[in-house]
């Protein structure tokens, strides 16, 4: 077992990877930092930090309409990220990649620009019980506005989407199905290929919230055949404030703009405005140039890690070890034990509140997340008000898992 772990570890070369993340090399509250809050945001490799600084130091300029050299450089770098994203998610063309401020804005864009145009009274939108609030609330709002019905696919006790129930609730009135690729609270990897197939068979389009997926599994939007795919740069080793909306060209072209102003127009008179082509139609105003450019380095970092299966396999080693160790702790219950899950563990401990656990772990230098993780309906499903969530990344180690498990055991022994 040890041999296998070492082999996988050496394939991934964790120590080399760790050395690229300056933030990891520090003490927090006198202890070596253990960062297990990667589902909230990942840390940034030095290349990303440098790219941000280089842009501002060397070629800060507004993009697209400038004729001067700096504007050309900035435009080329910005558009180069779009091409890398296209390659990363295997979109058929770069124009299908729209930059947003994050997954939340990407979903809101679809709810508003697609939903407002194509939803009619009596139509249905389907989400799942696993969703983050950002994939619930935009749909609630647009459904209210358009007198459409919002339906929810139930999830089972293990934290899996009930596909049979989905088949039962989808009807020919269902226009949009919006589900996450991977659950942020439980780590469940959803059968999105099947969900897309079922939805398409019924004539509905599908948006996948990929916020938790991009750092951990291969994304191939053509293979998935999803109509929209939304994700954030900051959960993928990139800067905050950048997101992506992938959409099929035909759909994007059929939609009205989401926001309006500069950049998204072809021609403006006071009588009429002609909109620009995709993707610019959806990128009104000066975009987040610096962060988009730095995001390119994050993508190259991930692509440079090699086969995503090796990444997933390494993270699964951490997950399995942590799961095994946590199960030894008296009073601890893991919430969400889907067969297919990424390295995320949500848990509760009888007699200890998740906030208290989180603060005590922080005092030991261990960063975890506590609370409802913006998934209150999911917490209600399990009859709890929150969990402690640990989420691993490629730079975490088995040693860190071991320190964490020992620390948690000590806390439980002392306080429970």
């Amino acid at each position: 077992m040890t041999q296998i772990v070492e082999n996988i570890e050496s394939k991934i070369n964790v120590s080399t990877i760790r050395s690229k993340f300056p933030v990891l090399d520090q003490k927090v509250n006198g202890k070596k930092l253990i960062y297990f809050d990667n589902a909230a945001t990942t840390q940034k490799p030095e290349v990303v930090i440098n790219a941000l600084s280089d842009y501002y130091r060397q070629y800060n300029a507004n993009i697209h309409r400038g004729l001067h050299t700096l504007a050309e450089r900035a435009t080329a770098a910005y558009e180069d990220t779009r091409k890398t994203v296209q390659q990363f998610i295997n979109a058929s063309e770069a124009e299908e990649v729209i930059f947003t401020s994050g997954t939340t804005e990407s979903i809101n864009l679809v709810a508003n620009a697609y939903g407002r145009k194509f939803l009619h009274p009596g139509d249905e939108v389907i989400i799942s019980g696993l969703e983050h609030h950002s994939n619930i609330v935009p749909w609630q709002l647009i459904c209210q506005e358009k007198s459409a019905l919002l339906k929810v696919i139930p999830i089972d006790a293990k934290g899996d989407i009930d596909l049979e129930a989905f088949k039962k609730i989808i009807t020919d009135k269902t226009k949009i199905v919006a589900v996450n690729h991977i659950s942020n609270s439980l780590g469940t990897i959803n059968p999105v290929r099947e969900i897309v197939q079922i939805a398409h068979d019924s004539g509905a389009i599908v948006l996948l919230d990929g916020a938790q997926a991009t750092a951990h599994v291969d994304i191939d939007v053509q293979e998935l055949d999803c109509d929209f795919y939304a994700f954030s740069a900051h959960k993928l080793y990139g800067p905050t404030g950048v997101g992506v909306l992938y959409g099929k060209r035909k759909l994007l072209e059929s939609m009205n703009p989401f926001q309006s102003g500069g950049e998204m127009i072809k021609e403006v008179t006071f009588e009429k405005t002609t909109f620009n082509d995709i993707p610019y139609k959806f990128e009104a105003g000066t975009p987040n140039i610096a962060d988009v450019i730095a995001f390119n380095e994050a993508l190259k970092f991930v692509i440079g890690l090699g086969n995503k299966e090796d990444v997933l396999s390494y993270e699964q080693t951490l997950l399995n070890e942590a799961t095994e160790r946590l199960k030894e702790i008296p009073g601890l219950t893991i919430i969400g034990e889907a067969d297919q899950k990424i390295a995320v563990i949500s848990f509760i401990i009888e007699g200890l509140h998740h906030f208290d656990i989180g603060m005590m772990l922080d005092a030991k230098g261990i960063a975890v997340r506590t609370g409802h993780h913006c998934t209150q309906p999911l917490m209600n499903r399990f009859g709890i008000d929150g969990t402690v969530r640990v989420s691993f990344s490629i730079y975490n180690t088995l040693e860190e898992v071991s320190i964490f498990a020992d620390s948690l055991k000590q806390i439980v022994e002392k306080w429970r």
Partner: protein
Amino acid sequence: MEIKENASTSMTDIQNEIIDEFSFLGDDRESTIFYIMELGQKLPELDEKYKIEENIIKGCQSKVWLTADLDGNRILFNADSNTDITKGLISLLIRVLSGQNVDDVLNTDLYFIEKIGMGQIIGSQRSNGLVAMIKQMKLYALAYKSKLS
């Protein structure tokens, strides 16, 4: 019983006592958090009948129930929470404010909070919760003051 004994001590003395206790803990975050949790565990539980919606302090991330009673011109506070750290925090407020004269509760400056560096210990989210607790305690004092006058 403990509450009544506190009443004979001035709020300044109690606050200075707390500052002394925390200074013994030094900069060690873990010991400080453990100490607050211990205080929380020592706070007597509030009877279930008081754990109702109208006693919940709005603005706290965790659940905090607070009751206030008048004993002559002194105000008696009791509280509970579903987290030990929050219970510890409110137990400190109770230690300073409960059993004190209504006017004193209204006018007091709770300087011990800053002196012990509570903001850094508990973070910004919980600090907001602490402010909400103090506000609610002062609101009770204000309400009782108008009742007394």
